[in-house]
C-alpha cells in the first residue's frame, strides 16, 4: 500500500513488519492452574484483525463455572505456596518474566498490532518496552516491601481479580500483574474480548519461567465473564481498568460487599496551550495527546484549550500537522494512526462525531485515503465547540479532538476542571511559575507540563473524581495490593 501525503507531495513506500515471526495457536482454551484447559462453557469467541476483519484465532468464552475454577486454582496456589514464597523468590520470577518479554519483544509487538490495530511503531517502541520495564521495576519491590511500608505489618490480600481493557492489552496486564505478584497475591486475569492474544502468549512466558501453576490464571471472554469474576465470592481484591460506566457498576457490586477495589476509568483531559508556549513543540504534544493509539487512551488530551490570542495560528499549525499523519496498515512502520479496535468502537466514535456536527461544531479531517476493509477513522479536529456539546463532555475514545479557547489562567483552570473526570491534564507554557500554579489546580491524577502521554513504572498513574481511585506504578501503586494485618484498608 502506498500512502500519499498531499501536503508535501511525498509518497511513502510500504515498510511492513512481517507477521510471520509471531507464532500463535489457532485455538486457545483458558489458562488455569498452569495449563490451557477447554472451557466448561463450551463457548468460544473469534478474535479478528481490526485492520482486515480477518479471523486470527478462536478463544474460549469463560462462564461462571470457568471463573470459579480459575479462582479456585488461584486460591490453592496462594494457600499452598505463593503466600509463603519469599520476596526474593517472587522477585526472581518477576525478573525472569521481564527478561523473557525483552527477548520476545518484537513477537509480542507484532501480535499486539495484529490483534488490536495499533501501529507497530507504538507497540514496538512504547507498549513492549514499558511492559518489560514494569515487570523489572516491580521485581525489585518484591523483597523490599518492609521499606515501602515502614511501621506497618502488611500482607497480601490473597486472590486478586483483574479486568483489563483492549487499548493496551499487554501493558495493562503488566500494570496489573506485576504489583499484585510482587506483593504476594495470586491472580485471575480477564483480558478484553477483542484483544486476548498477547495475554495468552504471555501464558507461554509464565510457563517458560516456571512460575508455579495457579499463581496467574487467564480467563478470556466478554462482559458476562467479567461479571462472573466481579461477583465471585472468593476474590479478596478487585482491580479494573475500563469505562467509567462499567466501573460504576463494579463499584456498586464491590461496595455492598466491602470488597477492596482499584478503578482506572475514563477521562476527558484538557490539554492547555498558553500564548507563550513553544508552539511547534506544543503542536507535537497535542498530536501525541490525541492521536497516540488512535485516541484509544483513557488519559488522551481530547479537549484542547488554547489561549485566545494564539487560537487561530495554533489551530492552523495543528491542522497542517494533522494532514501529515499517515493512517493505515498497523504493521507498516510508517503508519502513525492504525485501525480502530472494533466495529463497535467505530460505531461509538461515528455516533459522537455526528452529534458534534449536528450540534453545530465544525469538523476538520485528515484527507488520507482509508483502506477498504477494516475499521478506520480519520484524525479529526472540531472547532466552534461549545461546552454543552456532547463531543466536549463525553469520552469519545477515538482520534477526535475538540478545540475551545480561554483568556486567563483562571478561566483555563475553570474549563479544564469542568468535567466529572479527572485522570490527566496537559499544560504548555514557557513560564515555570505558571506551569506549577496550573499543575496545583488541576483536579487530575497525572499532569504533564510541556509534554504529554508519558508513562513509567516508577510514576504513579490514576484518577481523581470519576476517573477512579487507587494508583498503578511506583511506591504509591504498591499500596493497592497490600492490606494491614488487622484487615482494615
Amino acid at each position, binding site marked *: 500500500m502506498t500512502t500519499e501525503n498531499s501536503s508535501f507531495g511525498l509518497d511513502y513506500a510500504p515498510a511492513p513488519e512481517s507477521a510471520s515471526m509471531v507464532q500463535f495457536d489457532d485455538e486457545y482454551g483458558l489458562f488455569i492452574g498452569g495449563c490451557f484447559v477447554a472451557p466448561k462453557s463450551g463457548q468460544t469467541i473469534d478474535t479478528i484483525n481490526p485492520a482486515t476483519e480477518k479471523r486470527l484465532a478462536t478463544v474460549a468464552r469463560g462462564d461462571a463455572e470457568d471463573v470459579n475454577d480459575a479462582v479456585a486454582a488461584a486460591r490453592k496456589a496462594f494457600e499452598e505456596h505463593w503466600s509463603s514464597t519469599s520476596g526474593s523468590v517472587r522477585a526472581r520470577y518477576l525478573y525472569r518474566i521481564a527478561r523473557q518479554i525483552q527477548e520476545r519483544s518484537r513477537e509480542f509487538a507484532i501480535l499486539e498490532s495484529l490483534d488490536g490495530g495499533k501501529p507497530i511503531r507504538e507497540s514496538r517502541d512504547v507498549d513492549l518496552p514499558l511492559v518489560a520495564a514494569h515487570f523489572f521495576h516491580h521485581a525489585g519491590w518484591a523483597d523490599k516491601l518492609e521499606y515501602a511500608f515502614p511501621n506497618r505489618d502488611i500482607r497480601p490480600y490473597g486472590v486478586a481479580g483483574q479486568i483489563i481493557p483492549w487499548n493496551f492489552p499487554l501493558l495493562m496486564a503488566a500494570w496489573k500483574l506485576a504489583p499484585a505478584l510482587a506483593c504476594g497475591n495470586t491472580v485471575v486475569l480477564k483480558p478484553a474480548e477483542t484483544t486476548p492474544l498477547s495475554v495468552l502468549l504471555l501464558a507461554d512466558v509464565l510457563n517458560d519461567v516456571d512460575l508455579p501453576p495457579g499463581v496467574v490464571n487467564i480467563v478470556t471472554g466478554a462482559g458476562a465473564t467479567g461479571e462472573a469474576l466481579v461477583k465471585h465470592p472468593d476474590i479478596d481484591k478487585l482491580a479494573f481498568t475500563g469505562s467509567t460506566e462499567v466501573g460504576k*457498576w463494579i463499584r456498586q457490586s464491590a*461496595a455492598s460487599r466491602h470488597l477492596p477495589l482499584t478503578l482506572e476509568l475514563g477521562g476527558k483531559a484538557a490539554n492547555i496551550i498558553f500564548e507563550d508556549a513553544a508552539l511547534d513543540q506544543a503542536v507535537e504534544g497535542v498530536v501525541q495527546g490525541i492521536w497516540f493509539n488512535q485516541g484509544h487512551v483513557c488519559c488522551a488530551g481530547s479537549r484542547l484549550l488554547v489561549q485566545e490570542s494564539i487560537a487561530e495560528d495554533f489551530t492552523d499549525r495543528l491542522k497542517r500537522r494533522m494532514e501529515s499523519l499517515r493512517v493505515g496498515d498497523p504493521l507498516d512502520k510508517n503508519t502513525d494512526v492504525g485501525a480502530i479496535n472494533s466495529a463497535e468502537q467505530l460505531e461509538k466514535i461515528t455516533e459522537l462525531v455526528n452529534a458534534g456536527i449536528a450540534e453545530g461544531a465544525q469538523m476538520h479531517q485528515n484527507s488520507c485515503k482509508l483502506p477498504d476493509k477494516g475499521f478506520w477513522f480519520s484524525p479529526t479536529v472540531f472547532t466552534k465547540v461549545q461546552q454543552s456539546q456532547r463531543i466536549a463532555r463525553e469520552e469519545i475514545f477515538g482520534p477526535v479532538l475538540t478545540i475551545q479557547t480561554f483568556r486567563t489562567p483562571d478561566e483555563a483552570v475553570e474549563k479544564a476542571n469542568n468535567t466529572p473526570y479527572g485522570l490527566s491534564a496537559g499544560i504548555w507554557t514557557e513560564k515555570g511559575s505558571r506551569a506549577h500554579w496550573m499543575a496545583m489546580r488541576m483536579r487530575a491524577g497525572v499532569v504533564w507540563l510541556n509534554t504529554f502521554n508519558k508513562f*513509567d513504572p516508577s510514576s504513579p498513574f490514576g484518577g481523581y473524581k470519576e476517573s477512579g481511585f487507587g494508583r498503578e506504578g*511506583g511506591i504509591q501503586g504498591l499500596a493497592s495490593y497490600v492490606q494491614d494485618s488487622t484487615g482494615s484498608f
Partner: protein
Amino acid sequence: MASQLPIPKTFKLFIGGKFPRSESGHTFQIRIPNGRLLANAAKASRKDLREAIRNSRSAQGGWSRRTAYNRGQVLYRVAEMLDARREEFTGILIDGGSEAEKAKSEVERTVERWIWYAGWADKVVQVLGSVNPVAGSFFNFTVPEPTGVVVHSVPDETPLLALTSRLAPAIVTGNTSVMLVGEGAALISMSFAEVLATSDIPPGVVNILTGSVTDLLPWALGHLDVNAVDLTGIPADLPDELLTETAENLKRLVYGDPLAASPEVISCFLEMKTVWHPIGR
C-alpha cells in the same frame, strides 16, 4: 436557691462556623444516665446536611491552599483551646456516662492527638510523596492532595477521641469535613464544637450535625458534591445495599479503626497527583 437550679443547655448544629437550629425544628433530649434532663440538642435533617456540605465545599479551596505550616498551627490551636478546658470536658464525658479516670484519660489523649496531627501538616508530603526516577529526561514527582469534602459517620464509643481521630487526619491536609454524630455522642461533640468555634478553624472547615446517623448517612452516600465518606462509625443497622449509592460519582469509601492514629489514616483522605516536566537545556 434559684442559683443552684441547673440550667439545661440548648445545643444547636455547627455549620459554616455558626450554630443554627435544625431547619426542621426537631430536637431530642440528652439525659444523664440517672435520667435527669441535661440538655436539648438539634436533630439534623437532610436539608441541614446539604447546607453543611455546601459550606464545606465553599471552605475547601481556601483551606487547602493555605500553607501546611499555617494548617499545622490552626490544628495546634485546637489542642490549646481544649487543653485549657480539660476539667470541663472530663466532666462532660462523666455526665455522658464515662468513668472518671477514663474520662480524664480520654481528654488528655484527645489533646495529644490534635498536637500529633498538627505536626503532620508539613510532613505528609515528604512521607507519602515521592520524586520518581523515570527512564527519561523528565523531572517527575508525586504529591498527595486532599480529596475534597468528606462526610464522616462518627463512632459512638470514646466519642471525643473517636471524633478527633477521624476529623484531624482529614482536615490536616486541606479536606473539609461534615461530622455526623449520633444522639449518644451529641453532648460531647457539640461541646467540642464550641472549642472549634473559638479556635482558628475557618468557618465551614468542620461542620457537626447531631441526630440520627442512620437517617442522615444515606443522603451523604448519594450526594454528588461529596468526595469521600468515612464509614468508621457506620451504624450497624445501615443496610450494605445503601453503599451502592456511592457509585454515582465514585466517592471514596474510607474504613478504619476508630481510635487509630497513623499516616495511613491521613492517606485515606488523599489523592496522589503525579507531575511530569521535561529536563533540557
